[in-house]
């Protein structure tokens, strides 16, 4: 469980003050995977540096399992940091160390006995599926394998929170899937709280239970994936389930509606239901139907024939849990 309360970070640049984090609050339950998404300059890197205490926050607190991290004394800082395991975009492995030695690094720092280290490293390499690569150097590993080593290393200090900073931005789509699956399986096994900082919508779609949108140092939207996607006016919904393409230039006459429906209702035959209930032809102009987490979502742009009873149809749709937006009426 991680709780961030009113985190502020102000940088002084000459006589200019940059407010990089402007009161960020966040609560993620144990076992949850939370995505933090934001554009360049939103404050993502600053948030990471404050969460890992590489930079001290200007004010506010960071707590893991109700134990405060940010406001501990300088001497306790190093112990405090061990509550958060961190995975980096470029893995940041030590090139002079083998896979096993990299994973052993955090244990060496606190003088763990050799035999304990060996046991623990073996277990972690097994967990991330790299037992056969224990003696390989990072340069001999693929990007995905390096990221696995980074995950094993982050886990070796038994953290309560796993903080992943753009963990897949340097990977190809196939490897991205593998790494996200690994993070999810690690979360399941160890009941870790996971924070993923990213700018890729796909990562949020594939791996996160909940998501926050960071903008100019503030969280402007947040919530469970199902909830944020279901809000058609929300920025996250538009980003996660966009409408593909533009309206075709020449349309047959009729009214155009955007439908967003999710959860159980998505599996229900909405189009068929309108067609049969109102006895008319529903034309799908654009849109997509997909599964996010445990839920199915549909975002469709439909066209109704001229003369349809738009009000009745809309009422029917809303009654069936569909969010309706009128795009064009003729």
């Amino acid at each position: 469980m991680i709780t961030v309360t009113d985190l502020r970070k102000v940088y002084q640049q000459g006589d200019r003050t940059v407010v990089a984090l402007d009161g960020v609050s966040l609560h993620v339950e144990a076992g949850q995977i939370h995505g933090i998404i934001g554009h360049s300059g939103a404050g993502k890197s600053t948030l990471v540096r404050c969460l890992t205490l590489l930079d001290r926050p200007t004010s506010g607190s960071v707590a893991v399992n109700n134990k405060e991290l940010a406001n501990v004394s300088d001497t306790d800082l190093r112990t405090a940091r061990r509550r958060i395991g961190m995975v980096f975009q470029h893995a940041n492995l030590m090139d002079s160390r083998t896979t096993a030695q990299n994973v052993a690094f955090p244990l060496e720092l606190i003088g763990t006995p050799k035999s304990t280290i060996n046991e623990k490293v073996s277990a972690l390499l097994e967990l991330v599926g790299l037992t056969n690569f224990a003696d390989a150097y990072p340069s001999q590993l693929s990007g995905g394998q390096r990221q696995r080593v980074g995950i094993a290393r982050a886990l070796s200090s038994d953290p309560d929170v796993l903080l992943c900073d753009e963990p897949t931005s340097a990977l190809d789509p196939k490897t991205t899937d593998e790494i996200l699956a690994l993070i999810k399986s690690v979360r399941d096994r160890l009941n870790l709280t996971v924070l993923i900082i990213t700018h890729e919508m796909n990562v949020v779609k594939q791996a996160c239970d909940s998501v926050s949108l960071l903008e100019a140092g503030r969280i402007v939207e947040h919530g469970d994936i199902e909830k944020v996607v279901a809000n058609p006016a929300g920025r996250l919904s538009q980003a996660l389930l966009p409408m593909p393409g533009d309206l075709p230039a020449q349309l047959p006459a009729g009214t155009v509606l955007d439908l967003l429906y999710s959860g159980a209702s998505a599996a229900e035959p909405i189009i068929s239901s309108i067609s049969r209930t109102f006895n008319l032809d529903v034309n799908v102009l654009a849109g997509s139907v997909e599964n996010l987490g445990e839920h199915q979502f549909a975002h469709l742009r439909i066209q109704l024939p001229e003369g349809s009873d738009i009000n009745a149809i809309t009422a029917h749709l809303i009654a069936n849990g569909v969010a309706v937006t009128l795009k064009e009426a003729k």
Partner: protein
Amino acid sequence: MDFFNDLMTNPGITKAMWPAFLETLQMVGISGLFTVVVGLPLGILLLNTAKGGLTPNRGLNVLLSGIIVNITRSIPFAILMVSLIPLASALVGTSLGPIAASVSLTIGTIPFFARLVETALRDVSAGKIDAALVMGSTRMQVVRKVLVPEAMPGIIAATTTTLVTLIGYSAMAGLVGGGGLGRLAYNYGFQRYDATIMIVTIVIIVLLVQIVQVLGDWFARLVDHR
């Protein structure tokens, strides 16, 4: 042929070349050792006291980098060497021969080596240092377990360059009382018009430089897992 005959009989070669060669090795070895022993920590300090380093300290950095290293590096070695002859005498009790020359050689190359070490350490990505800090390393652990091991190929390359520079400087030391191949080339090759000695000395030094370079490159590759 005359030249080859001379090669076999010239006492400057048959008698003096081997001891001179050993003296050169001695000078380069002693000063190389002390340069590394002093220059490595100095290089680490140069990096870490700088802005953005692990222990930024503007005053110390200006002193070390701006004053000591920059100024010492700007003094031509020829001038540094002659002005350090009294110091050599005070430190090692003699001002003659390879041991004495090693004093000025060491002082002359420490700033050079420290700067190269600093550059090598600077190449260690900030991400690795961040990773080590996030994992709870002390600053000393960052230096010992990250900076130095990760920069090792660069540090070895710096050592190689320094040894090659030392060979060049040691030859110059031969002109003012230092020993070794430089003295032989100057006293016999130059002063006594002995072209054979000159050529043989040059060939030996060139070979020595090439061997140091090849060994250094090989060793750097050996520890380079990037």
